[in-house]
């Protein structure tokens, strides 16, 4: 019988930046322990229109980065990404954290084995 192991204590960081800016943010997130990232393209507006002539410096085309992290990592990675993307500059983008109820993916069997032996660490506790 196939079993599904779900992960708890998961958070999702979503970061919306100008096209081409995602790569260095993802590198920063990965070096802070993020496992991977999903990027998709989008169009966004708002600050661009309110900057007047300076709005030309902000690209309409955006990249949306989705990174699933553990709740212990989330603050650290969030900060790393914020500074890697220079989000303290107008027009550079916005990011937010969403609590995730559960997640499931491939978990290497040896890690599953190890977690079973230490009972107060498993997700089966839930």
């Amino acid at each position, binding site marked *: 019988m196939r079993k599904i192991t779900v992960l708890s204590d998961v958070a999702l960081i979503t970061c919306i930046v100008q096209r*081409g800016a995602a790569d260095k943010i993802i590198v920063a997130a990965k070096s802070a322990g993020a496992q991977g990232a999903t990027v998709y393209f989008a169009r966004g507006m708002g*600050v661009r229109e*309110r*900057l*007047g*002539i*300076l*709005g*030309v*410096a*902000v690209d309409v085309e955006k990249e949306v980065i989705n990174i699933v992290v553990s709740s*212990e990592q989330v*603050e*650290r990675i969030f*900060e790393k990404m914020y500074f890697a993307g*220079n989000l303290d*500059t*107008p*027009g*550079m983008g916005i990011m937010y954290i969403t609590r995730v109820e559960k997640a499931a993916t491939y978990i290497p069997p040896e890690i599953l084995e190890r977690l079973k032996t230490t009972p107060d660490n498993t997700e089966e506790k839930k």
Partner: protein
Amino acid sequence: MNQQIRFGDFTREIKINQKTISYNELTPKPVLDSSGQEIPFHPKKIHLRSIDVAKLLSPYISVRLQAQVRAVVPLALYLVLFQVLILRQEVLDHAIIVWGLFAVIIGLMVFMEGLKLGLMPFGELIGNRLPKKSKLPVVLFIGFLLGIGVTFAEPAIGALQTVGSIVDIHKAPYLYVLLNQWAGTLVLLVGIGVGLAAVLGTLRFLYGWSLKPIIYATLCPTLLLTLYCMSQPDLAKTLGLAWDCGAVTTGPVTVPLVLSLGIGIASAAGKGSSSLSGFGIVTLASLFPIIAVMLLSIYISFNYSVQDILNTASTQAAATQSINWYQTTPYIEIIGGLQAIVPLVIFLFLVLIFVLKEKLQESGIVTYGLILSVLGMIIFNLGLSYGLAKLGSQSGSLVPASFTHLNHIKDSPLFTYSMGITVAILFAWILGFGATLAEPALNALGLVVENLTNGAFKKEMLMYSVSFGVGCGIAVGLVKIIYDIPIGYILLPSYLLGIFLTHCSSEEFVNVAWDSAGVTTGPVTVPLVLAMGLGFGDAVNAVEGFGILSMASIGPIVSVLSMGLWIQYQARSKKNVEEELLTNGLEA
């Protein structure tokens, strides 16, 4: 003694100070008017501190600046180092050249941004909407006019007019006339050629015609006209120019605008799903102008004799002793920049208002883009005459010193004859190879091709084979100038070879190979190579220094086609081996 720290404490310590404010305090509260209706909220403009402006603008500018610096600096550095280290000559006027190159970088950067923000939205809007609102003949006619307009806006076209003054009227009278009195007509005819190419390319989009018969049908008259011009000794000297015009037209303005129109029309007709149909327009846009220019020179030769030209030129030279203010820098560059962009923009506006009856979205940004493109064009023109043309003609005039005696250079020839020729040819080859490899458009083409051929034609393979072709082309062009070989003797066999290879190749490779020739001739390479060729021709007392660019066009066509054939051959033999194994296995 184990010290225990709570992980939460640890993360709080390493955290940067976070301050929390409620988003509720930032968002506006709904405002009601007297009747209880909600007044729509209009956000205020954001006022930035100067530090924020700098932070906002610096990545925006640096990305765009770097792209142009990468295109200009290595080429210029190569020319200067070659001149200083191998030829051991000082660079004359280096201050002016540095400023000129700086102007080229800035001008190109501003122009490209203006193109993206100002002209491209126009092209896309017209391409998308026009086919829905108008009948096909109207659409084709507007495409034709657009082809003429973009030719005038092409930065490299200005280079042709700049080099016109170098030609010696007594050696090549028709060439002189073409580039001086008839310069405007010349550009117009090149434009008509591009316009016709746009029409034919659009039809190809619509009906999915194969490129091969179109290439045969276009090349036949081109080669026949070339043969005719070769038979007339005075006309033969204009051939180099005619073939070079083809290479000049396919630059950063023409290709995207004409393509966006063609793609828009095809998608409106529900066709054009095949991405390969996007190719081919570039090829046509470089072949038709050649025919147009040859026809013009034949027309001139029928109506004016050589003697007429010499007479008018001498009377004109006497008459125009005083130079008008608008013929001096920087006014001539400013006028050139305005002439290039403004008619195109007015034409696009008229189409938008009277044919499409539509308003432009984001008109503020588009206006900004248009202003940028005019400004960029002016700055680029300045840089063209003071940076690229000067540097190119200077190194062109110095390179012959390696194998022949030049009056203005001490100790020339610098090397023995055979050694010197080798140095000159190597110089040309590396120049072509390097400049092409650095061209950003080639990288883009390589990616597209790798996707389209499912990885059979690797990006690097395409880039290297195109660069190899261009390098050889420029080297052959140099040889042509040194030994004064009539250009037809080189062009005819190489194009015949091109046709033969086209006949053998499959459709995809034909599309890619013929277009790769157009990609290689960017706004930096063209003026530099043109000026170099003319300076070179001048130094070795050749009749004219044109023709290098046209050699640089046929070079990659032949090299890419051969590469394609080789890949096909390999794939086939691999398949054969596999089939053999399979049948053997079955028998066993």
